[in-house]
């Protein structure tokens, strides 16, 4: 494997979980809810998926189970912020920590265990190309489904009725309610959708990328996801750019070090963050457009019409 092959394949593997979770978070935030519990949902998804693979050997079932487990956690979050009208920031943090705790507890007896990796896609001809073949076309299927999902979501949020309703609820829940949409119900579904993708994301990280479970293995990726969404100004295409950029920079950092190029490693470690922030900030320099993109009611408690 050459360094270029690794740069491509490493980027795809590192970016995929970030992208999957960030796509979910875009939808949640577009509906006007700030979900800070991604880290916990990813952890729950990861441990559930690991247990399922460990016991059944089926990776697809594991990804689905990871998503469903995170949905359960997201329902807790949804109930707290939508029905109990809890502060979204505090509730998100609390549910996130709850998720991390549950994952550690559930995975206790699986700590440091290993499972077989997920089957990789072999595309005739393409997978055999030099450099690009093993770099681009030799990964588990979700690596390719994630950008596909991004395209679908981009279209859905921009052109479909469902997407417009979600955005309307996020912009002005009162108006959406006035024209007859069930604001709480729509937000509830959006949160479940975001939870599902966060769970799948953690599941992918655990059983497709790392193939081991260790308590705390999500290691802050949930927070990177939230930062990506905000810096990408809630736009799907920029989330995609941000996720792959972050993935590429985090791999490049390791490559530069392993090539023996003498650069302070702390600087290298911070480069993915710097590159992503700078790049996405440049894309989002126009303040007016930023305000247009930000869901107006994001983070606000919706009291409803009672």
């Amino acid at each position: 494997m050459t360094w270029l092959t690794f740069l491509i394949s490493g980027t795809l593997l590192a970016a995929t979980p970030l992208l999957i979770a960030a796509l979910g978070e875009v939808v949640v935030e577009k509906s006007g809810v700030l979900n800070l519990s991604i880290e916990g949902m990813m952890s729950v998804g990861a441990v559930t998926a690991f247990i399922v693979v460990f016991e059944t050997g089926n990776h697809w079932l594991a990804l689905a189970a990871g998503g469903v487990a995170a949905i359960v956690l997201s329902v807790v979050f949804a109930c707290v912020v939508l029905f109990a009208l809890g502060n979204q920031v505090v509730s998100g943090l609390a549910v996130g920590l709850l998720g991390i705790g549950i994952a550690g507890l559930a995975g206790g007896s699986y700590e440091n265990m290993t499972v077989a990796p997920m089957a990789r896609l072999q595309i005739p001809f393409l997978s055999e190309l030099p450099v690009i073949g093993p770099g681009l076309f030799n990964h588990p299927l979700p690596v390719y489904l994630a950008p596909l999902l991004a395209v679908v979501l981009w279209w859905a949020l921009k052109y479909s009725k469902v997407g417009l309703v979600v955005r309307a609820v996020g912009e002005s829940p009162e108006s959406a309610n006035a024209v007859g949409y069930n604001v709480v119900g729509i937000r509830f579904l959006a949160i479940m959708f975001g939870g599902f993708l966060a769970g799948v994301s953690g599941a992918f990280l655990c059983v497709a990328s790392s193939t081991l479970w260790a308590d705390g293995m999500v290691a802050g990726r949930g927070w990177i996801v939230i930062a990506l969404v905000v810096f990408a100004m809630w736009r799907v295409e920029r989330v995609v750019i941000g996720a792959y950029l972050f993935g590429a920079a985090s791999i490049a950092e390791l490559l530069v070090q392993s090539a023996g190029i003498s650069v302070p490693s702390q600087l290298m470690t911070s480069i993915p963050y710097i590159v992503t922030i700078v790049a996405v900030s440049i894309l989002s320099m126009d303040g007016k457009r930023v305000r247009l993109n930000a869901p107006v009611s994001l983070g606000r408690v919706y009291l409803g019409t009672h």
Partner: protein
Amino acid sequence: MLNILKKLAMAACVSLVAATAQAEPTKLGFIYPSPTGDVGWAKQLDLAREAVVKEFGDKVSTRVVENVAEGPDAGRVINQMISDGAKFVVLGSFGYFNDGLRLARQFPDVAFLHASGFKQSKNFGTFTARNYEGFYLAGMAGGMVTKSNTLGIVAAFAVPEVVAEVNAIALAVKKVNPDAKIKIVWVNTWFDPAKEQDAARALISQGADVLFSLHQDTPSVVNVGQAQKVFVVNTNSDMTSHGPDAVLASVTTDWAKYFVKEVGDKLADNFNGTDFRGGIADGTVKVVAWNKAISADQMAQIKQAEADLTSGKMHVFAGPLRDQSGTERVAEGANLPDPDIFAMNWLVEGLDGSLPK
């Protein structure tokens, strides 16, 4: 909130062993920074705890709290243990230092053992492993079996302990294979399995066919080695089960003898806090799980080095030693003294890569 949750998780993990003795058993408390998996640092400490239980039977009862965050959490856990009657507390992480030392002053009748610490008192002992000696032996093996003449190191943080290990590997490799190149990636995290794996893959993409996993507590690098058919030397536990072909050797720590001795001293009311540095000679550091790829001839050389380390005939950091800039650090005929080994902040000549400053 995290603390409360961790507490809940901990409460479920707390295990109470023994306690059926006629006489009131002496209570021993063990605090680990990570969960006790089937491998890793906490597991090695727990094996030593089991040895203590086996040795003293009904005379002791042990209690374990695992996955305790460094900081205020640790203070509370230690306090709780002492108020529950613990007379002997093992602090399994350097980060428990402040709380441990404070409580040691407050409770002079409780004996403490503190991992990697540097400060001792009558009831506060410290223990450190000379892992670098183990990595010297494993480094010899690495230099012998490499075909690409490129070895890679995935290193956690550039703390003196890890730097000393990196240097020991480099010296050993150069000794058996002067043409070999060594590349380092500092991941700058104690815990991020996915990133550690990416670092391992990066080194492999640069041609490394032997990897050293320095202080990764999970089999992250071993998994990559197994999948990509390269050798891995790992830290803490025997990880052969995670990479039967990949594990070249595992540098493990065995605290059993030390814990048994210290607990025995405590039971005899004879405890005195010392600075214990265990290495190859006393059996604290053991290199196990040697791979079959090492020939009998090569193994004999390694065993000879091990015997020389044990007898004191050889020292890992024997002079003359130069650092990367060419400055002489240890003169011909001298050995690097202990305080300098445990404060190492320079890399030996001949290493690719730099030290985070």
